[in-house]
């Protein structure tokens, strides 16, 4: 039972981290109608910038400065890259962000090399917050939880209670009308893209020390982030939250419980072959849940898309 509670907490941390990426991505999607393949690359840039800054000034300055740099970069890329490609249509736009993801990975390798860089949690948070039956829970993870929840509340407040938030929401649905009312819609787009990428950068800053800061970090997370927003429903903030937490828990619990296919097959009445390593079904018999854990999100995505293409909380089809 205690392990179960610890797993709930661990999955919660993973889910919230995913949400920090998904929220920005889904905002950008609902606004511009394009899936930003490079979103996780901004997450990686956040981690690397914060690492570089932390070498000179320590962790806390990096926490603030790195996301700002990433956000500005994102805004510039929207202004001078994406906006240019936008005129050619959605497919080139998607391909542009795909190319951008490759390019950012190459640039990171160019400047910081291919090895993992030693980016660590600040000393002030390097202690055990509490322990449940021998399982320690680091203070840094508590900090991550508060950061993510804080970000979500701020975002929710801005989108629903402020004037700028109203404009954004309006621009989502009726860009021409908003433009005619005198708002600078391209500027709003650029701002949203910048803020979305800054949020991804922030996620990178706080996740880098626990998940590792290496050139492959964007690739491993990027596809999962996609899964989250597709499952949650493109453009839906609440959907992104639910899907992120769901996938965080799926991954944590799949890795934690050694359910074996063998048990299932025997329960179904099959007989285990004596010489398992000579049986053509050896791979099926020896399959365990942790082995398939990381592909469960993709399975979930395919099933959701086939049965409900608009996602769990989505209102429109893509």
């Amino acid at each position, binding site marked *: 039972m205690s392990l179960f509670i610890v797993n709930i907490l661990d999955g919660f941390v993973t889910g919230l981290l995913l949400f920090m990426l998904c929220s920005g991505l889904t905002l950008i999607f609902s606004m511009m109608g394009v899936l930003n393949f490079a979103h996780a690359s901004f997450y990686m840039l956040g981690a690397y910038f914060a690492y570089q800054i932390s070498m000179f000034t320590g962790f806390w300055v990096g926490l603030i400065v790195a996301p700002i740099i990433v956000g500005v970069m994102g805004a510039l890329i929207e202004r001078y890259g994406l906006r240019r490609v936008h005129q050619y249509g959605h497919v080139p736009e998607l391909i542009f962000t795909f190319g951008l993801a490759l390019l950012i990975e190459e640039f990171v390798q160019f400047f910081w090399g291919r090895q993992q860089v030693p980016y660590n949690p600040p000393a002030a948070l390097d202690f055990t917050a509490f322990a449940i039956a021998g399982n320690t829970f680091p203070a840094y993870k508590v900090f991550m939880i508060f950061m993510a929840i804080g970000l979500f509340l701020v975002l929710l407040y801005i989108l629903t209670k402020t004037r700028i938030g109203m404009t954004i929401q309006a621009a989502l649905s009726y860009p021409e009308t908003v433009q005619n009312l005198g708002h600078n819609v391209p500027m709003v787009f650029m701002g949203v893209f910048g803020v979305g990428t800054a949020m991804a950068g922030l996620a990178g800053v706080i996740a880098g020390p626990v998940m590792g800061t290496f050139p492959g970090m964007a690739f491993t997370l990027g596809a999962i982030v996609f899964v989250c927003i597709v499952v949650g429903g493109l453009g839906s903030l609440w959907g992104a939250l639910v899907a992120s937490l769901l996938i965080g828990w799926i991954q944590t619990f799949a890795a*934690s419980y050694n359910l074996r296919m063998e048990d299932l097959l025997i329960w179904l009445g099959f007989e285990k072959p004596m010489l398992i390593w000579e049986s053509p079904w050896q791979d099926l018999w020896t399959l365990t849940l*942790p082995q398939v*854990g990381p592909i469960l999100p993709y399975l979930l995505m395919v099933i959701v898309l086939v049965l409900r293409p608009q996602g769990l909380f989505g209102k429109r089809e893509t």
Partner: protein
Amino acid sequence: MKSLKKFALGMAVAGLSATAVAAENVKIAFIDPLSGAFAATGTNGLHQFRFAADELVNENGGVLDGQMFEMVAFDNKTSPKESLTQLQVAIDQGIRYVVQGNGSGVAHALTDAINKHNRRNPDDQLLFLNYSAVDPALTNEECNFWHFRFDAHADIKMDVLTDTIAENEDIEKVYIIGQDYSFGKAVASAAVRMLAEKRPDIEIVGNELHPIGSVQDFTPYARKIVSSGADAMITGNWGSDMLGIGKAAIENGFSGPVYTYYGAADGITAAFGETGVGSLKLVAEGGNNPPSKPEAQEYIRAFKDKYPDGNISQARITNVIQMLAMAIDEAGTATDVVKVAEALEGMEFTDSLWSDNPLVMRADDHQLIQEVHILGHVPVEAPFDFDNSGYGMQYENSVVAAGEDLPMSCEMDRP
């Protein structure tokens, strides 16, 4: 468009021939990743080869009547397909010797391709000197006359590792975790088999595989390991998976020894830092940090002067270079690789740098029999540390001629 195609191909061939420098040199193709995720390991390996060739062979007047060793680098991007393409380019350049080490998948592809090539083209045969790929099958079921392995394979290492565990009365529960592919499975099954023989009382409290290279957060695995009450864990993980599982386990409260195959250098020693002291163990051939012999210390100093960010992390590379030079001299030819291979078979070699005990290239399966150690992660002073981190690996236990008595299933066809 056709003219473009022609032009492009012209460029290709111009490019290919530009690297082919005609000389008396003995050229050795280095086919390993120089770009992509594993480029750091590959580049460091190339530096070690270049340095070894210059220091240990070329400085001493080369081989035969003054022919120099020349390393020719080919980037295989850790891809079997690219490796085979680069192999063809290497053959075009008249190269007779191929070294490779990163990834058993690539090694399988290369050994198979070289075997086929040598059979189909008896006029330009080549040898495969495998310095790091440790899948036991390469010198067992899949062995061939053209393949020589200079690293101890996974079962030999596990033999040494389980000997060490068996001697430690404090260890009663062991947790085995690895990447879900052939090597991870080989490590796990060898561990289970050998522990059952050597210490039947040890309980395997966990034996699992996780997907390779795609786990972002190892915390759930660490929780399981801690909850299982294991006294020691064994992992064949490498790269970011090694770092992930090791750090997660230690940070979440695991305090026993973590026995690894690849828990050192290439950024891993630096990333563990203080965390790894007392826990992280490595099974490997090669040198202590710092090595005992002054020649070896001098060698490392000179290497670090040239490559300050590099590590002498694969001591066997010097053995590859020195033994190849000896074999060429003994055969009296660098072009007839059958003669060189015959000279290499059964060769006894006394290493002047790392080990006091002679190394033997076993003729039956082309597996180098050598001393293998268990090393522990401890603070070490520069320049003998890894990753310039102030930490390195020191001997805790050594086995001479490790794995000599392990069963082998190689049936070799000789030309």
